[in-house]
């Protein structure tokens, strides 16, 4: 699973979660509670407990890749 991880996928996942979290409440208020409550609450939990850490970790990895990539290309000193 981790081999298939990429920053782009992490951002897409976070975006979907945040959209469901942001709009789900309005949808629930409009149509009633039962059908949408479980996926909405799951998105709400992910948005608050997982997505912030995931995005920070993703940012760290993107920065690390940029640094190590630059070193490999010789544009950044290894010292």
């Amino acid at each position: 699973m981790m081999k298939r991880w990429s920053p782009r996928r992490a951002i897409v996942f976070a975006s979907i979660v945040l959209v469901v979290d942001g709009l789900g409440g309005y949808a629930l208020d409009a149509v009633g509670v039962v059908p949408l409550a479980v996926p909405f609450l799951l998105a709400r939990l992910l948005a608050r407990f997982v997505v912030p850490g995931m995005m920070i970790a993703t940012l760290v990895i993107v920065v690390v890749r940029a640094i190590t990539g630059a070193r490999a290309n010789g544009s950044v000193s290894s010292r």
Partner: protein
Amino acid sequence: MLRALERPWPRLALFAIVTVVCASFVPRVWCGRGVDAIHRGDRSAQEPLARAVAHAIRSGVGVSSFHTGSARFDGEWTLATHQMAALGLMQVALAHPELRAELLPAIETCAERVLDPASTAFGAEAWGERGLDALGSTNGHAYLGYANLALGALRVLAPNNRFAAQHDRLTEALARRLDASPHGIVETYPREAYPADIAAVVGSIGLYDRGAGGDHRALLAKYATPMRACCIDGASGLAFQSMNAASGRPAGPPRASGTAIAVYFLSFADRVLARDLFAALRTSQRAEFLGFGGVREYARGHVGSGDIDSGPVLFGVGVTASAFTLAGARMFGDRDLYEAIYRTANLFGAPVDVGGRRPFAVAGSIGNAILLAMLTATPELP
């Protein structure tokens, strides 16, 4: 060393560490937004909640709005929705008198609905007589305490309203039944008595005195002694969930949901008893995880699952007990507990702003009415 993050396991470890660190403070900050304003009682925080509840009442809440699978419970929830809405709206109108004219019609609708025979048909089914038509009966009909609370809320704001005479008669009937009970236990249904419902009866009498200028102080003082002796567990300080009216002995374990409901209702009549029950909830039942608060349903040494009274029980924490404890926390000055439970209510209730209203999207009409009443419960009596 940086290249290690290109490999899966170090990357997974980084994700795990950063996620745990962020989860320890981001959700509590995110879900705690706005708690200062609602705790202070700011109009900007209370008004949208009140408008959401008033809107739901105007839109119509009836037995068909609920699907518990039991006609009795659907009826109870209909009655409780209107009663909680009336009390919550009353509290907001008292805190912000400029909103009184806007909120009063919804409270009047609540009073009208609790007197509708359909709203108390579940009680008539159980007793074989309509409680509101049998005020001279010796049968308990303690569920009428909920109806009387809604009438009391209207009476506090409009002493000469069109239901005042019915309010007088219902209060006197409930007071007479309470006085006649040797153990201070009024039955809700035949051979079924619940301290939370008895607290509704007692609280409604206290609220009547404030709204209509009655004086039941002697009765309320007399009631407190048997209530403490019979209905409260000495070990935990919690109220037993159900009682045997004839023997005065508990018929169910001490539980937080009934206790937390009783705290709120008793606050209209007996603040000392309400404070003592709240102290038991605070000291023995409080649960907290990452800044999210809740209240354990069962007292230490007792185990059980969720039911219609407690709502869902997750890791021992009950939805009803947690929500109702908000009122005690605000009334008796436990700001930390109020904030911790508010975060939980915000997380799972999911408030949204829609055209000047702020309904909790997941709470439904009864949840919104309860949360309004609990979040705006006042340290001072109305």
